[in-house]
């Protein structure tokens, strides 16, 4: 009898252990599935963004080529006009290439190790690369860098791309306001030792509050000239760094984009 009881107890213990293992397996399967879905969403967003951005110059190229053929068919052919059209086609080809180069840089970066990043340094670098463009658009730039920001861990090129996109959007947003009203404010600060914050604020006409919810979806929003990747990708990049990209605006007096990057969280690869 004693032996039978021991055997039953042992069996019960084994069964319960097996059930626990199955539960753990199911849980990790669920996590894997979620991760896979996240990846697919990222890929889908990236592919859609690229397709949309490449189709703009492609539209320019195909329409210009059709036009050039028609100018040549005229009697006499309008050669000067054809030359002009060919220059436009050339420019459009380079633009399409620029979009692809940007995407390649982004994906190359994910193959590299993440690194410790000084966000102040990164912000200043991006601002310097845009120095000429800011001048050309008569944008008055006010930069406020927080002191003793903790370093964050992440993908440098990706984060550069996000800040570059926000600055491009800000310049575009101010193109239609008077020259002496074009003010760009860039601020970095820390949220204790938990997170680092980058804010980009423009003095454009703002974003209507009812549109704010959808601007991070692919193509709902403004198109950054040249750089080719929209806010949808920016938002995904920040999310993958465990952070958050948000926008606020009253629809009249400019817009404020805020990047929050946690110090502890390490960005996942890929």
């Amino acid at each position: 009898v004693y032996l039978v009881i021991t055997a039953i107890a042992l069996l019960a213990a084994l069964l319960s252990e097996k059930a626990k293992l199955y539960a753990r397996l199911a849980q990790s399967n669920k996590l894997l599935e979620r991760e896979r879905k996240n990846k697919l969403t990222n890929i889908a967003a990236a592919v859609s963004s690229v397709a949309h951005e490449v189709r703009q110059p492609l539209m320019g190229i195909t329409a210009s080529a059709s036009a050039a053929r028609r100018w040549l068919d005229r009697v006499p052919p309008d050669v000067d006009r054809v030359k002009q059209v060919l220059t436009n086609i050339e420019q459009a080809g380079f633009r399409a290439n620029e979009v692809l180069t940007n995407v390649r840089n982004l994906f190359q970066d994910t193959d590299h190790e993440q690194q410790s990043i000084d966000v102040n340094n990164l912000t200043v670098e991006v601002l310097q690369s845009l120095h000429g463009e800011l001048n050309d658009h008569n944008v008055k730039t006010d930069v406020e860098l927080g002191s003793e920001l903790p370093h964050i861990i992440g993908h440098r090129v990706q984060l550069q791309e996000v800040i570059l996109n926000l600055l491009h959007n800000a310049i575009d947003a101010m193109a239609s306001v008077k020259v002496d009203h074009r003010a760009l404010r860039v601020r970095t600060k820390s949220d204790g030792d938990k997170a680092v914050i980058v804010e980009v604020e423009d003095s454009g006409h703002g974003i209507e509050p009812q549109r704010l919810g959808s601007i991070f979806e692919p193509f709902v929003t403004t198109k950054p000239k040249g750089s080719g990747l929209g806010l949808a990708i920016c938002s995904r990049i920040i999310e993958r760094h465990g952070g958050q990209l948000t926008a606020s605006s009253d629809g009249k007096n400019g817009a404020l984009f805020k990047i929050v990057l946690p110090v502890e969280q390490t960005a996942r690869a890929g």
Partner: protein
Amino acid sequence: MSEIPLISIVDDDSLAREGICELIDSLGYKGVTFESANHFLQCGQILDTACLITDLQMPGLNGLELQEALRSRGYQTPVIVITGYPNEKHRTRAFANGAVGFLSKPFNEQCLIECLNAAIDLRSSHARSRVAAHHPEITTAKAASRR
């Protein structure tokens, strides 16, 4: 001698906008470009526009909203909607609002020519009914602003 039809092109992307305008000119029409829906709405050339070609995804009013803004102001301008990101929902909405065409970027010139022909036909039939009804456009515009 009949006037050269004016075709307005609204697209926030300069390469697409200028390319399409070039094609319009080469087809023997007069193309004029606008970088946003608001620029077009404020240009004072809506009545002269024989056909409006508008991009769909744009900052500010998008192409479908521009189409609706024109209708609500009483304009009957034929509209061709173009997009680099086509989907069925937008296509249905564009046609429900009376679009003469919905083209994916980059489009083939023959498709554009067919849409433009349809637009010009539609405009002349509007013009014929206007003459018959003694300037109803003015009445329509006023009625729309009263609403």
